[in-house]
């Protein structure tokens, strides 16, 4: 299933300058893995060694924080939009 991943400005240099990418996957984890296959440098930037997200990375599926869903195991539908954003904003 193809999902549109929106890449934040801070990661675009590591993503060949792209601001978004279409990636296949049935869950958030599969989509992110697909993104990392395309842009290997992104993995270390947003993932911990154990494969979970770094603590200052937020991922939203259709505007909803995936921690309110099923985290990285959240299923994604064809045409869904996944947004990666820095968590250190606001307050």
């Amino acid at each position, binding site marked *: 299933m193809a999902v549109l991943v*929106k890449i*934040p*400005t*801070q*990661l675009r*240099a*590591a993503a060949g300058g792209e601001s978004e990418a279409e990636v296949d996957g049935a869950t958030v984890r599969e989509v992110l893995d697909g993104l990392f296959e395309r842009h290997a440098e992104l993995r270390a*930037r*947003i993932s911990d060694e154990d494969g979970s997200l*770094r*603590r*200052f*990375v*937020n991922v*939203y599926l259709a*505007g909803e*924080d995936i*921690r*309110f869903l099923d985290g990285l195991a959240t299923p994604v539908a064809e045409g869904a939009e996944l*947004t990666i*954003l*820095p*968590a*250190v*904003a*606001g*307050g």
Partner: protein
Amino acid sequence: MAVSHLQCKECKAEYPLEALYVCERCFGPLEVAYDHSSLTAGGARDLGELRRRIQGGPQNIWRYADFLPLAGGPPGPSGRLASRVGLPAGCTPLVRADRLAAALGLREVWVKNDAANPTHSFKDRVVSVAVARARELGFRTIACASTGNLANSVAAHGAALGLDSYVFIPADLEEQKVLATGVYGTKLVGVKGSYDDVNRLCTELCAERDWAFVNINLRPYYAEGSKTLAFEIAEQLGWELPDRCIVPIASGSLFTKIAAGFREWSELGLTDNPARPQPRMNGAQAQGCSPVAKAFADGHDVCRPVRPDTIAKSLAIGNPADGPYALELARASGGAIDAVSDEEIRAGIALLARTTGIFTETAGGVTTAVLAKLAARGDIDPDERVVLVITGEGLKTLDAVRGTFETCAIEPTVEAFDSEVADALSV
């Protein structure tokens, strides 16, 4: 000036002093780094000179310009004239609250009343610094994601300095905070969602617009403004530190930066008794939005986001950016992070009003209620010097006190007073 560069709090990577807030390597937050060596090169004599310079400075946060992240010094034609530019914040009263202390079985409680700022909350401190830096960087438009107090402040600073402003708030904010923002002529955008939705939207917009979002791309500079609360408290206590501070937590930025301010001055030797321990830091949250208090209680080092449901809307951040650092600080300083119910918040507002004459908004009710809770639990030694940080004004959240007392309406005659009031009160 002593300001040096931006540095990632996590991996320590260095960045130039631009409108940046996230480390590209690890996504950690950037913060401002300083080199204070020139301030104290001459030892004790320089420290005395520095104290005199601060005391002779303007009656606002620019008296602490040596510790703030502006490349060109305080705004205005000279340091002494800084108070003529924009909306000067700070130098708010530190009030000795003996009646509040007595009510709680304590001996020395001080209230730092930051409602006494131009737009009636501590946000004027952080906005003053962020907007001054934004002007140095050449921005013409300022913006923010706000739970209300920041909205007031950004709109007012935009008006004072002739900058365009965009203010994004949750659409269901208290009416007083909406009115006290729109009046300044800002472009006010109500977003159908929680503060966390507003924040996500603004983080996305920030990448697309050439605007200074004070609490996003200018956040490293903005956060530094909160240190001035610590500087003022220390200066007002006669260059001494308190033993304990009670501070509300929304994102956790204010909480951590107050401690950073105390530490910065202690390390320089600017406060007396450099060997004295740093203050215990107690964070205060509302039970209806307490991701940091819950992580503290559960022994976690990260916060799980929550959906806020509390009358303390100015603290209603379900996904707090500085949560991990607030947890570290509370534990390392020997403090704690507690949460109180909406009923306790209302009682906190009443307790502060009736013992100090200070009317605070719901966030101050949270802070006062946490102080009462700590005192009741026996966590505070009666001989401690405690500072309660009151961040905002009660007139902004009037609904919180509606129906909490009775009034009577009488005919304008002595008989009516005697029969309807005096008899009832036995006066």
